[in-house]
């Protein structure tokens, strides 16, 4: 990008993640009341789209990912009726959630369904994207861990999702690994190859402090939907902090329709007080971004460190080396056990 960036007057839609991705640092324990107050704050601040579900999407309630404080249905039914202008979305990972979950979410009043797969596995989303589109939902194809493959291959996968009926395609930096040029290369090629009417989106994590810079790069390359989290509440070091991104957009003349002061009040008064620990770039979140590891692994690795005496950083590096993808949270305890046994830290055990 040599030319000075002039994004003045570009209209984009920001999509808040604090009540979905933010479930990760909360171990999926955000209460119904907290969901209601935060979503109403965001609605009043003009945030147009808010995601609400278990952190791992519809059907994520499990031993593997954590049981939430309430069911997806309870959260959605508690939030949606109070929205004055904001719409609510739900995330679905095929292999975890099913079309039954999708139908339930639509019945609750969700207007956007986002179907997420690992970046090389778009073809498992066909039945869910098909159905979402058939039901008249705003249907998004969401390619996770998008740093792991080259732009050409990524675009090929995104176009599969487009062919199934997705009207919006997301490039998702689940590990917070990408640098702005990585984002530009991917978004620009996708913008070039996708149908003109197909919207392009970007979802960032802040593990290398690149959330805002990457999101701006995405807009410059043609993305018109940007995921952010109010107060930065998301997995790893969080998502692109919503209030910071809005401030930067205001300065650059990018139009979001979101009131900066209202949304920064929500961050300060409603989101920050519910955090169990500051969502920040500690050494483990940094490791996620540095080694390209799925951001939701963070807390699991910390717990394994406590239990088995192997540092979370080492566990995360090992998971990265073994190219683990989103959803393989089970491999964290497994890896810690294996490392602990190799080092003689375990008492005699079965295996």
């Amino acid at each position, binding site marked *: 990008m040599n030319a000075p960036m002039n994004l003045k007057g570009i209209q984009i839609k920001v999509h808040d993640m604090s009540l979905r991705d933010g479930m990760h640092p909360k171990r999926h324990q955000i209460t119904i009341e907290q969901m209601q107050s935060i979503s109403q704050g965001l609605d009043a601040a003009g945030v147009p789209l808010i995601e609400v579900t278990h952190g791992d999407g519809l059907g994520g309630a499990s031993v593997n990912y954590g049981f939430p404080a309430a069911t997806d249905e309870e959260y959605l039914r508690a939030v949606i009726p109070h929205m004055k202008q904001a719409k609510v979305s739900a995330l679905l990972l095929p*292999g975890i959630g099913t079309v039954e979950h999708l139908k339930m979410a639509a019945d609750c009043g969700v207007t956007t369904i986002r179907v997420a797969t690992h970046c090389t596995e778009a073809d498992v989303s066909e039945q869910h994207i098909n159905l979402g589109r058939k039901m008249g939902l705003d249907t998004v194809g969401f390619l996770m861990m998008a740093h792991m493959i080259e732009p050409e291959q990524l675009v090929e996968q995104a176009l599969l999702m487009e062919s199934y009926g997705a009207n919006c395609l997301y490039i998702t930096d689940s590990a917070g690994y990408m640098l702005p040029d990585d984002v530009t290369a991917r978004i620009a090629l996708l913008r070039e190859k996708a149908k003109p009417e197909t919207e392009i989106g970007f979802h960032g994590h802040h593990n290398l402090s690149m959330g805002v810079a990457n999101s701006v790069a995405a807009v410059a390359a043609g993305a018109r939907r940007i995921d952010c989290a109010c107060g930065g509440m998301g997995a790893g070091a969080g998502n692109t902090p919503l209030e910071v991104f809005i401030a930067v957009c205001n300065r650059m003349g990018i139009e979001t329709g979101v009131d900066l002061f209202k949304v920064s009040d929500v961050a300060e008064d409603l989101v920050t007080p519910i955090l169990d620990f500051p969502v920040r770039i500690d050494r483990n979140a940094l490791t996620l971004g540095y080694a390209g590891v799925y951001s939701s692994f963070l807390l699991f690795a910390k717990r394994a460190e406590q239990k088995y005496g192997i540092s979370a950083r080492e566990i995360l590096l090992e998971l990265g080396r073994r190219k683990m993808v989103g959803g393989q949270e089970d491999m964290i*305890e497994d890896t810690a056990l294996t490392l602990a*046994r190799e080092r003689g830290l375990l008492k005699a055990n079965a295996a």
Partner: protein
Amino acid sequence: MSKIKCAIIGSGNIGTDLMYKLQRSSLLEPTWMVGIDPESEGLARAKAAGMKITDKGVDGMLPHVLEDGVKIAFDATSAYVHKENSDKLNALGVMMIDLTPAAIGPYCVPPINLLEHAGKREMNVNMVTCGGQATIPMVYAVSRVQPVSYGEIVATVASKSVGPGTRKNIDEFTRTTSGAVSKIGGAKQGKAIIVINPAEPPLIMRDTIHCLTEDAPKQAEIEASVKAMVAEVQKYVPGYRLVNGPVFDGNRVTTYMEVEGLGDFLPKYAGNLDIMTASATRTAEMFAEEMLAGRLSFDVAA
């Protein structure tokens, strides 16, 4: 000793791998392979192995079933055509082992309920899913010791081992497997998760089985039960290994498994496919034993 003659419906990866396993059996003889693609590698291999073949689907074999004495058929096609295949062959007294997710017959997980099915003269048994074969024995290993309120399995498979059928209908995997985790595994509630990993070189199938016991887990008994069950599965899948666990954490009991295939036709990492063909072979052998002993035969419909 005479062997029971078998037909393989479907000449893809699964059908071809199955052919090699049947060829090694002392009780089964693969005599037919049915495909729909004349160019299929599986059909070519079957022909080279001296089997009869047709590329006209099941209808291409039907006129020969009785004269060739086919008694057991394996369906490795798709859920969409399974019922039709099964009805046609059952009518000719051929029992059907269903490797598709159609599940019109009862679920069969060999170390748990195979004997029961043979005793009931089932004419169609379903092999659940790859994830089911790999994990349900472990759920059962816990639930036979004490009540399990909730069983959850996570199957992670190599991207290269997941065919287009599974990809088009991945919900069927989750639905069928979670149903069988409770129905066959004995957990009061079941959940199944599948993760596809594209790493190169491909990863060997991994399975994690979480059980929540109603009361505090009886650790020593569960450890012994798990160990015995692993040995039972290893009889037909030698690469079925306990990597870690059982881990006891409050009422959670977790076992971490790895399933390496034999590498007959499918690569070794595809333990998910191997455990299906191996379980199906094991199932057919049990029925074949009953047939050869004269205790089991199915009539041809009038």
